[in-house]
């Protein structure tokens, strides 16, 4: 009876299989690397390192993670921070460029005109409600991304919505503007700025989503 063990060929470790790549990706996801773009890059890095190692894939993987997991997760935290900072910059850029300022001017001027020709209290209420609706839409988009995790989660878009949701919620809670002023034009300006900011967030979200889809989905 032949001992087929002697004839068992060592698996060619030069290229990993789809299953092995999937294993690495799943492990990283379960370890907290939730963002798809970051996980793609980390998976490639780990896979490239393992492809240079001889021996059993799972042994090599264990060995590699024992030595490098801490670094990988540390870089994951830094990625997230960079993504958040980039999101802030993009929103600020979209807010202050001509299109953003035009939207702000439009909201403000429409508000002023409405104040001149209609009931002032109704105009302020209308602006408050409009801002709340836009805020809720932003919230729904963020929840959809995080609760129903069927889609890919990109670091930039998640940080963008998450950060601005928190920021605007805190702003609304802390800065009760009607306690500081009852001057209608100032109130209109305040809500106009908030609504323009949310629109800048939506524009930035679309730009980032398009960028990620172009990069990773071809």
């Amino acid at each position: 009876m032949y001992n087929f063990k002697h004839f068992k060929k060592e698996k060619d470790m030069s290229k990993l299989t789809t299953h092995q790549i999937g294993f690495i990706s799943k492990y990283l996801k379960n370890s907290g690397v939730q963002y798809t773009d970051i996980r793609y890059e980390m998976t490639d890095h780990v896979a490239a390192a393992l492809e240079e190692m001889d021996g059993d894939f799972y042994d090599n993987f264990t060995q590699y993670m024992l030595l490098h997991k801490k670094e990988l997760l540390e870089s994951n935290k830094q990625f997230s921070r960079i993504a958040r900072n980039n999101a802030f910059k993009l929103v600020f850029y979209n807010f202050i460029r001509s299109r953003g300022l035009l939207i702000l001017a439009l909201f403000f001027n429409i508000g002023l005109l409405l104040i001149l020709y209609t009931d002032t209290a109704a105009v302020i209420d209308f602006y408050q409600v409009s801002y709340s609706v836009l805020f809720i839409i932003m919230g729904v988009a963020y929840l959809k991304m995080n609760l129903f995790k069927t889609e890919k989660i990109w670091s930039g878009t998640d940080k963008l919505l998450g950060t601005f949701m928190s920021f605007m919620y805190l702003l609304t809670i802390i800065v009760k503007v009607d306690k500081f002023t009852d001057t209608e034009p100032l109130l209109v300006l305040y809500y106009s700025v908030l609504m323009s900011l949310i629109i800048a967030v939506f524009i930035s979200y679309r730009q980032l989503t398009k960028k990620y889809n172009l990069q990773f989905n071809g």
Partner: protein
Amino acid sequence: MHKKFMYTFETTIYDMKNSQLYKGSLTTIIMKLLEENGRMYGYEITQKVKLITKGELNITEGALYPALHKLEADGLLDVEVERVDNRLRKYYKLTESGEKETVNRLNELEEFIRNMQNLVNPSPKPDVQF
């Protein structure tokens, strides 16, 4: 030595004895490599640095990728993603402004090395010789 055990020694961001010295030069190192090699991916950069420095300098993931992403965010690097060997790979290359910035940073680094050399090994002053 079995390749499996190569990673036993690669546990620090840089060689511990000179980590602070290299820290400020990481982005310059990355940009210089990209200038010479066109486009590269993350793991390739770490291996190239290790090869050139004969294993003296090991850049880990925690140092490399944040640096790459920062350079990308600053508009100095461009990114291309391709499907390679059953996965997606992100390649980095210098933008036009990145190429200009690389020249500036290399000049700064050369000046730094020159100044450090003068400080560490000052040339003897002829009028003070005995």
